[in-house]
């Protein structure tokens, strides 16, 4: 198996999924709207004092991004599962783990990247400024792909199962905790003046780990679901 065919396979999947998503642009928009609504709920619940908002800002933004990723998981494999494309994918000569990376990457571009791009605006709402805004974007840029890769494991496990919406949340949220801690921690450290590099490196490590381990687990789960 040549390297070019592997990249060719990933590229093919990414192109296909992005094309399909272009035809249903509402999917990307839904992630963004959800994020904005959830983030707006917190000041309404907690009160508008700037000092309080600045303290809870990193956590709120990160939890909202995490929940938006969680909700988008319902769309990662379902369409292909329903119309039989997933079964074809499993039979292809390239390793399933590689195809999974392509599929999840495309899913991230549609559902996760908009979150990253919108985050500075939302950060301003919570009184974040300057360097911490940059750290926020960086943390989400590293973190949301990790959340997508990890979440794909859960999505694959519950394919076609009744009540899968809540079940996938229960499965995936414990796995999200380290990413949340390092992600929000990066922004908090930056705001406290000690710099977000340490947390960002740990976040990067989570991303790399998820890129290596999650596709195998996801592939195994997909094969189990398709038997």
């Amino acid at each position, binding site marked *: 198996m040549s390297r070019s065919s592997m990249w060719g396979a990933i590229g093919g999947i990414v192109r296909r999924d992005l094309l399909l998503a272009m035809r249903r642009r509402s999917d990307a928009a839904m992630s963004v709207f959800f994020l904005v609504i959830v983030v707006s709920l917190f000041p309404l619940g907690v009160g508008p004092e700037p000092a309080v908002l600045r303290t809870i800002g990193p956590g709120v933004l990160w939890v909202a991004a995490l929940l938006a990723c969680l909700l988008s998981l319902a769309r990662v494999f379902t369409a292909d599962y329903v119309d039989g494309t997933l079964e074809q994918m499993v039979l292809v000569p390239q390793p399933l783990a590689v195809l999974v990376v392509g599929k999840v990457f495309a899913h991230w571009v549609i559902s996760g990247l908009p979150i990253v791009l919108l985050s500075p605006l939302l950060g301003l709402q919570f009184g974040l400024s300057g360097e911490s805004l940059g750290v926020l974007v960086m943390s989400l840029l590293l973190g949301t792909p990790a959340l997508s890769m990890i979440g794909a*494991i859960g999505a694959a*496990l*519950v394919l076609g*199962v*009744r*009540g*899968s919406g809540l*079940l996938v949340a*229960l*499965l995936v*949220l*414990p*796995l999200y*905790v*380290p990413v949340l*801690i*390092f992600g929000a*921690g990066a922004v*908090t*450290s930056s705001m406290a003046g000690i710099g977000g590099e340490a947390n960002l490196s*740990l976040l990067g490590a*989570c991303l790399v780990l998820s890129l290596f*381990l999650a596709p195998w*687990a996801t592939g*195994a*789960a997909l094969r*189990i*679901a398709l*038997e």
Partner: protein
Amino acid sequence: MSTGINWAKYSSPQALYPLAGRLIPWFSVAAVALMGVGLYMGFFVAPTDFQQGESYRIIFVHVPAAWMSMFLYVVMAVWAGIGLGLNARPSFMMAQAIAPTGAMFTFLALLTGAMWGKPTWGAWWVWDARLTSELILLFQYAGVMLLRTSIDDVRRADRSSAVFALVGVVNVPIIYFSVQWWNTLHQGASVSMSTGSKMAATMLTAMLLMTLAFWMYSIAIILSRVRCIMAERESLPAWEEKPVTIQKIAEAR
């Protein structure tokens, strides 16, 4: 002729079922005996703690329960891995049998941890690495069990919960580390659930005895549960019915 035990013989439920049945009484007796000695030592031999007074005696159930919750998760993950690797039904059944007991010990660890934390630190709950990891562990046990009950096809249920169990085993150390890290960032939460003072030898012994007792109890319960699972999943032929009963049933026809 090989001198070892023919392990392959035990890869079928029919052989495992009576073996498990013979082992259960031994482990049950061991559990009761160890608990008796452990509790006696814990309450009547171990001295009062200098810092914590009598409240520290909760550790004789808290620490064993916490350790069991973690051991059992790892053992469950091992059976899950063996099941996935060898495609053996009994391995999945063992994993299925372990989960409820592991979840129970996790719940007990959390509850007794809160009972210990309130008089010692003034708070029912602290977000230290150990308690938080315990909480995540409870969610993971719940995930393993819910995957099984939500999926109707038994084979898929076996294998899906096995995959999730293995993923969870990787997650717990990562969680532990990340929460410890998080605690160092937010300096306010500097309490920890470890005993401050060095433990007297009698305290340690009582704790270890109780841990062993919980181990014996767990083995007895899990073997018992795996027998129920085998009876429910495989059709239970005349494995355990005594010959007299079979005779009676035959005559009743």
